[in-house]
């Protein structure tokens, strides 16, 4: 299980675990795609380069996921397989692969309205990197 759902009555709150921050960010992107549109196969059908800059690590994660959300809404790009490169804590670039969203193929998901800063945490747990985040649905 790449991510687990944590209790939150109104929205979707998840916990993601990975080894290393770049994979943690990539797993967060995969989780977001699975919530919005289950069944994404990263068939390399579409590829996008994404770059974001922010004040800190939490800001980078927030802006990275918000950018993927924008691409889903505006261009119907479902990007679930990202290779993330972090330069310090203020700059991120990623190569993201996925496929075009299809209402027939990817049904049963929740429309995510936004990525919330409330409850957004990135921390170490032993060797692992962990994040918790709330999506407004």
């Amino acid at each position, binding site marked *: 299980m790449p991510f687990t759902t944590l209790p939150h*009555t*109104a929205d*979707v709150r998840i916990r993601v675990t990975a080894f290393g921050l770049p994979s943690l960010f990539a797993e967060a992107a995969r989780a977001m795609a699975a919530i919005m549109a289950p069944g994404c196969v990263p068939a390399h059908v579409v590829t996008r380069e994404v770059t974001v800059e922010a004040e800190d690590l939490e*800001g980078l994660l927030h802006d990275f996921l918000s950018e993927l959300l*924008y691409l889903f809404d505006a*261009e119907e790009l479902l990007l679930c397989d990202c290779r993330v490169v972090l330069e310090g804590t203020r700059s991120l670039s990623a190569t993201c692969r996925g496929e075009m969203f299809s*209402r027939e193929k990817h049904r*049963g998901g929740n429309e995510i309205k936004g990525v*919330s800063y*409330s409850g957004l945490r990135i921390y170490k747990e032993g060797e692992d990197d962990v994040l918790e985040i709330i999506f407004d649905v």
Partner: protein
Amino acid sequence: MAGEVTRIGEYEWELPVDYRPGMRVPARFFLSEFLRKDLESGALEQLANVATLPGIVRYSLAMPDIHWGYGFPIGGVAAFAVDGGIISPGGVGFDINCGVRLLATPLRAADLSGRRELVERLFQAVPTGVGARSDRRLSGKDLEEVMVRGAAWAVEHGYGVPRDLERCEEGGAMAGADPSAVSPKARQRGLPQSGTLGSGNHFLEIQEVKEIYDPVAAAAMGVPPQGGVCVMIHCGSRGLGHQVCTDHLKTLEAATRRYGISLPDRQLACAPVNSPEGKAYYGAMAASANYAWANRQMITDMTRKVFVKMYGIGYDEMPLVYDVAHNVAKREDHLVNGKPVPLCVHRKGATRAFGPGSPGIPKECAAVGQPVIIPGSMGTPSFLLRGTAFAMEKTFGSTCHGAGRVTSRTQAKKNMRGQDVRDRLAKAGILVRAPSYESIAEEAPEVYKPSLEVVRVVDAVGLSKLVARLEPMGVIKG
């Protein structure tokens, strides 16, 4: 020792100002004993967080549907002085002007033939669910006008009648919209989504008027008589509003630091109401609110056309009862210590409930108060209420907005199968149509607090008074 939750009255509770360091005012909320069982600690924390924001007037408030959200609690209301106070997207949410409207029909529930076909035709007519695209896609120029003129644009383009505008909060278009503060990204998200319902808790519902509690108010508002059929529409500003929130959070975060405001939660990023950043957010938020009013107006048009075709009634025989916003910040004057003061009132999952004689309510309702629409769930009733003078004194003219969830979406899907929920509701006479079974399970009636209890509390407290009860007959879910 830190202050504790204190009971002020039968339904009124207080978090004293020493409940948490940094609170500038106490918090007040309204709950019955029954509803208090479900009060989450996260919601109380968020209520206390709001009390720390600069320029907050009187109290950080929450309505009886208070629950844990992000930024403000859902059901949260707070007013900030225009002079010295702040504006925050955390007090509005991603879905700017998510709201609800109620349409009357001349039809009787008992005579409504072909109900299954009606539900199916409405489902086909109104794009719903994740990734739904509009067949009434806006041009760039149209979008520019929609952001300024809201529902009025839609009416002029054939999606309604002029009287509809008299029955919308703000006449269906908030003043102060500034499209130049809406990013190209927000526009890109908004263009293909005009006239779409969305997903989650958004819905279009066919309802029967089951009981009229206040015949005078019901007549003034234009509610059909008992046994009559109504249609309720719940949706918001779609991706345009969501992106505006995301974009302005970023600029306001920088502003928060610049103005030296310390925050307990980053989602509460804010700036002084009259700062350039605060004004830009207000302008973009108002533009999004106007998009939402146009969106509900376009869905209204699709709905009316289905009814006209199926039942041979006139398009103008489905008048709008009212349309209210649930997520918005507005410039309003309220009495503070006996004097009118310009305020920026944030309602996050709360409804404006202006009392009799207030400015900005339909002339037919001037004597009874503003219509307030409180949706239930797929299996529980919705309610029509009226605003009160008491709400003007107590909550800056605000009341609750819905029932509020008690079970998470994940838990709901574990507990129930969508097919079973659909079949059970069908046996109770409620036909449900949705893009997936998952969305039916997630929105099953038992995942919400009982709407009747929430409404009973606002009625007992006097924040709004019951006018009519509406029960679901058919539901289109997003």
